[in-house]
């Protein structure tokens, strides 16, 4: 059975097109990354898949169940972690986890093995209100809450946004271990560097799916050469590079510049 099947999904809000004709499958036991900038339609697609929104056109199946007709069954067997922190801030770590275990008709001890590794990291703070945790710990708690009922598919909408680099890395290590338990994971992120950690990625922009492949293939298929150029005079550098007819496009990127080369010549900034 294919855990997630998406066929020709479109969705618009009033006149804005949020998603245009999206189709892809997510295979069993893989980490599928949906990569795209803010406003690309990632959250809309997630909400359609977890039955929170109705698709405008097209059909989608999660665990072989239709997202419109069988929404009740889907809600029982998926784990969903929405973008932004959506736990009860005034409840403690333990109370949050107990609450989510109870509403899914299970207990913490029943599925403790699954969350053990993650939960142990936040267990020292289990009496602290969730609102007073650091960003990284909040995400770990939210992941525990989404996992506590042993879902078959896990939907994580931008789980690492606003989390520091170390916690992000830890978070991805955890996802790999969850995957080993046989849980299919669909995750979205605006960070390109996280794409390489997925089994397969889909690039999405302005509601359209640009390409789907393994990270390695996507890099391989990239037609241009990619260079990072660094300089003490960044503003002059970016202007000079843009003037040069050998560059395809130049973007500022953190402290260096992406320089997409059209030809074979390699130029280095001074």
């Amino acid at each position: 059975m294919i855990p997630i099947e998406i066929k020709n999904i479109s969705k618009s809000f009033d006149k804005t097109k949020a998603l245009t004709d999206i189709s892809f499958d997510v295979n069993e036991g893989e980490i599928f990354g949906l990569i795209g900038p803010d406003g690309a339609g990632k959250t809309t697609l997630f909400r359609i898949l977890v039955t929170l929104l109705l698709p405008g056109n097209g059909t989608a199946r999660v665990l072989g169940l239709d997202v419109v007709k069988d929404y009740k069954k889907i809600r029982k067997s998926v784990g969903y972690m929405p973008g932004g922190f959506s736990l009860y801030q005034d409840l403690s770590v333990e109370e949050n986890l107990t609450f989510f275990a109870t509403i899914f008709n299970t207990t913490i001890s029943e599925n403790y093995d699954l969350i053990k590794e993650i939960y142990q990291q936040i267990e020292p703070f289990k009496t602290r209100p969730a609102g007073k945790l650091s960003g990284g710990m909040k995400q770990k708690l939210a992941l525990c809450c989404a996992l506590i009922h042993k879902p078959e598919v896990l939907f994580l909408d931008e789980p690492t946004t606003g989390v520091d680099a170390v916690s992000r890395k830890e978070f991805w290590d955890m996802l790999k271990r969850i995957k080993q338990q046989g849980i299919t994971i669909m995750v979205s992120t605006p960070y390109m560097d996280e794409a390489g950690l997925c089994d397969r990625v889909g690039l999405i922009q302005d509601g359209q799916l640009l390409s789907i492949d393994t990270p390695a293939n996507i890099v391989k298929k990239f037609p241009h050469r990619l260079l990072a150029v660094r300089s003490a005079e960044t503003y002059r550098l970016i202007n000079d590079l843009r003037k040069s007819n050998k560059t395809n496009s130049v973007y500022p990127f953190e402290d260096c510049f992406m320089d997409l080369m059209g030809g074979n010549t390699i130029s280095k900034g001074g």
Partner: protein
Amino acid sequence: MKQFIGLLRKEFYHIFRDYRTLLILFGMPVVQLLIFGFALTNDIKNAPIAILDHSKDELSRQLTQKILSSGYFILVENLESEDAIEASFKKGNIKQVLILEQGFASKIERDGSASLQILADASDPNIARILTNYIMGIVNDFQNELMKDTKLPVEITPEVKMLYNTELKSVFMFVPGVITVLLLLISAMMTSISIAREKEMGTMEVLLVSPLRPIQIIIGKVLPYVILAFTLAVVILLLGYFVFDVPVRGSVVLLLVYSIIYIVLALSLGIFISSVVNSQQVAMLISMAALMLPTIMLSGFIFPVENMPWPLQWMSYIIPAKWFIIIIRGVMLKAIGVGLLWKETLILFVMIAFFIGLSVKKFKIRLE
């Protein structure tokens, strides 16, 4: 069932951890009741007056004694001449001046009539009217006593008796009123805010993507507030009973059952509000503006509905508080039972059915 208890427990955590709100919830009725009961009363006691007695005879002294011993008035000064009246009023510390004419007793004996002039400070017309009525009453009484002695031919004197609230205490009116307004406000506002908070914080998304059914989510939200509001109603009743001697003449059980019905109505209104709004602020504004004002103005709590122009009277029919006030006053003060209140009871039930039906229809199993 276990899921549902989990929901309830979570809701109670929210309520008890937000101790500021809890303090306001329980502090507000107490303060309101004390303000309404002690400060905002229509009864006037110990009004300062001055007396100008031109005759100073047996009868005039008897009459002024009777007036002063009523408890409504306090004598500030005895004036000696008409010139002093203006000055006495201007000093601002008296509400009325009583002037008894020259030869008060002899005139009554000779002509059977004498006059008494009441000058009232009508810059506050209500107080002036009430005080004047008090004096008229006392004078009437005095007249009757005199007639008994002189054995004049039979005369018909109207005898007014104030039923259910013999002393015309306004706190009798305020206790049921405060219960009505507060239960509605708290129940409707608290549920609408707490559902709106789940939407605002994004936790509603997580609740929806769970095996919980919408009806479970709604009842889980409502039940804690039923308990809270009911406790509050009991607190107000006890306060009224012990501090202001407001009795519950009818059946206490019936009163409490009616309170629960009314609370459920208020909560269903709250759920309805929350199904239309998405943020806590809007939920609060709607409950405050759309519920508090009409409830206080049009329910008959302070202003009698019968004196309003007919569009307002019509509007008052759709205000739940109007019907509950009739019920609660009936049960508390007149000791009447369900038999005489079936119309109001029916209206409450129809309103509950209407709002619950509407909310269930409007409750979103999805985000849009």
